[in-house]
């Protein structure tokens, strides 16, 4: 493509993609409106499964948002200069994913119009309230960080702000994990391992998202990805996937060690269809082992195989979260140890959940919102390495 035609083609591609993203987002807003109008009765949720598919999407996006900051952190906190040209994209992606996740979370509330109430009434004992502060703080820090990265005069700020962002997102992911970890009464959640587990997951999911974004923008610009960087991303993603697997294993093994958790573990890992299949085939197999093979086997060293691996990690994330969030709720609470219980309110019985279309649309709307923020951000700001005037030498390397 010659130089004069390129901007026109790029603009066309941009508008086409933006329109597609906006269409998905519009569907999601319509779905949310429908849910708002009729109530959650039009979802698959119930008094037993109170958090459904929208939470799977939202938690994925929020956890991945924190991890998407990896690359910027490696550059500013760990001083790896090679990663620096990619830092702005890394920060932008964090903002994009977080925005998408929060959108889903808010629109899934029973009373989304009461956001003002949530913003003005804080119960400081609530980890949820803390998370709202942490999420908003991350937006602010990322905005400042991005500014420092893009504005030459603010360059000295990049390192301290980068450090702050790094600390902030570790705390934030700990907070997200703690939403579940603090649920002392539920067999599926009450565990101190969940916070570090979420951090490990965020590293893997965030880097996978980052790679996919990078590959997407490279393709959009018609450029090849930097080969040396690809090697590093592959190795890093592999390590993160192993770390996530390790923490998931620790979580289940500690649960298995406690006799009172045995029934729940049997349910999730062996007996309670569809959760064991999602866990073993979805998360462990397709979401972890296959990507590991793709990432570590020299035969699959290319950008395409890496993208497939990253996409599988993201898919595995959905499988994991579905098992974690839904599977954790359908398993009955143990209110009467030593007794077999029956009631009209699902005591002693495994609950059921089938996601409905509006829920699915709302969830994909979160992905679309993240996509749009990244797309527009990358077009409006000199985010992408080739376009960043401050660092042409590094980008060319």
């Amino acid at each position, binding site marked *: 493509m010659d130089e004069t035609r390129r901007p026109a083609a790029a603009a066309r591609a941009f508008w086409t993609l933006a329109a597609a993203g906006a269409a998905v987002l519009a569907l999601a807003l319509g779905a949310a409106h429908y849910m708002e109008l009729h109530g959650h009765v039009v979802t698959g*949720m*119930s008094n037993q499964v109170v958090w459904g598919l929208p939470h799977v999407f939202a938690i994925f996006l929020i956890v991945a948002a924190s991890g998407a900051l990896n690359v910027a952190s490696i550059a500013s906190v760990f001083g790896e200069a090679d990663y620096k040209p990619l830092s702005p994209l890394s920060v932008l992606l964090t903002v994009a994913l977080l925005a998408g996740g929060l959108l889903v979370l808010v629109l899934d509330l029973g*009373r989304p119009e009461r956001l003002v109430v949530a913003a003005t*009434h804080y*119960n400081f004992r609530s980890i949820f309230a803390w998370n709202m502060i942490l999420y908003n703080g991350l937006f602010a820090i990322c905005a400042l960080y991005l500014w420092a990265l893009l504005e030459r005069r603010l360059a000295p700020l990049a390192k301290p702000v980068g450090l702050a962002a790094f600390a902030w997102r570790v705390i934030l992911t700990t907070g997200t994990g703690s939403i579940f970890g603090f*649920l002392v009464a539920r067999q599926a959640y009450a565990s101190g391992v969940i916070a570090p587990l979420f951090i490990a997951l965020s590293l893997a999911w965030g880097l996978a998202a980052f790679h996919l974004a990078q590959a997407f923008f490279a393709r959009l610009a018609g450029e090849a990805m930097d080969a040396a960087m690809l090697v590093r991303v592959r190795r890093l993603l592999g390590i993160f996937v192993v770390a996530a697997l390790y923490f998931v294993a620790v979580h289940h093994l500690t649960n298995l060690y406690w006799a009172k958790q045995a029934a729940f573990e049997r349910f999730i890992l062996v007996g309670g269809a569809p959760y064991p299949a999602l866990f073993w085939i979805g998360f462990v197999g397709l979401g972890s082992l296959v990507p590991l093979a793709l990432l570590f086997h020299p035969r699959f060293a290319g950008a395409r195989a890496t993208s497939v691996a990253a996409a599988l990690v993201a898919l595995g994330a959905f499988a994991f979260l579905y098992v974690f969030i839904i599977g954790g709720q359908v398993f009955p609470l143990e209110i009467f140890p030593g007794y077999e219980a029956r009631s009209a309110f699902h005591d002693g019985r495994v609950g059921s959940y089938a996601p409905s279309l509006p829920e699915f649309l709302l969830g994909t709307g979160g992905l679309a919102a993240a996509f749009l923020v990244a797309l527009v951000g990358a077009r409006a700001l000199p985010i992408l390495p080739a376009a960043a005037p401050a660092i042409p030498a590094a980008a060319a390397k």
Partner: protein
Amino acid sequence: MNPVDKRRREFLGGAAALAGAMIAPGVFLYDYAQAKAPGEPASGKVRWGMLVDTTKCESGCNDCVVACNTEHGLPEATRATDAQWIRKVELKDLRSGKAISAPVMCQHCAEPPCVDVCPTGASFKREDGIVLVDRHTCIGCRYCMMACPYNARSFVHEPTTGQKPDVPRGKGCVESCTLCVHKVDRGGTPSCVEACAAAGHEAILFGDLNDPQSEISRRIASVATTQLRADLRTDNGVRYRGL
């Protein structure tokens, strides 16, 4: 004043305004004479609680549930999305095989997990131990339902019909047993307790756990009772005999 206390005050103001609606200047719809004056905060001197005697509760009897539904304008629960503030649980002792029947409702914990996790402070505990949801600040996040060890809360999944003036409900909010606070504040007794007595079982006793002379306190002092999931140390206001 911590945020939860603050919400509690505000809620009381709102609840009093609502419950004590004036029908004409100087004429109140409800009489608080023997109980709490409108706007008067709940007293920390009392702790309302219940004692469920499973040895008296009859398997298959559902009178308490029906009474609760009638009192609060809840439709009969037929689907998993329907609200159930109280439910009958049929239990079988796994070792002896003994069958037990008991109602389960909000346990009105002294340390309620739902109150701890609620981001806006909509879930709160009154000074007299009653755990409530302020339906004007509940954003419907359902975190309290995740946190409740007793599965005692319901989410309003669809527009409400047949609302009772004393019991504000609303789509998109979480609700649960209020211990019939609107009756208790006027010196009354929860409807489930009355219905159980009317059926001749008297399996639920209501009273002030802080008053050593109250019937409930004397009963708890004389027979062995337990709190559900006592290991969680939520110190429930509802106690069970025979579990």
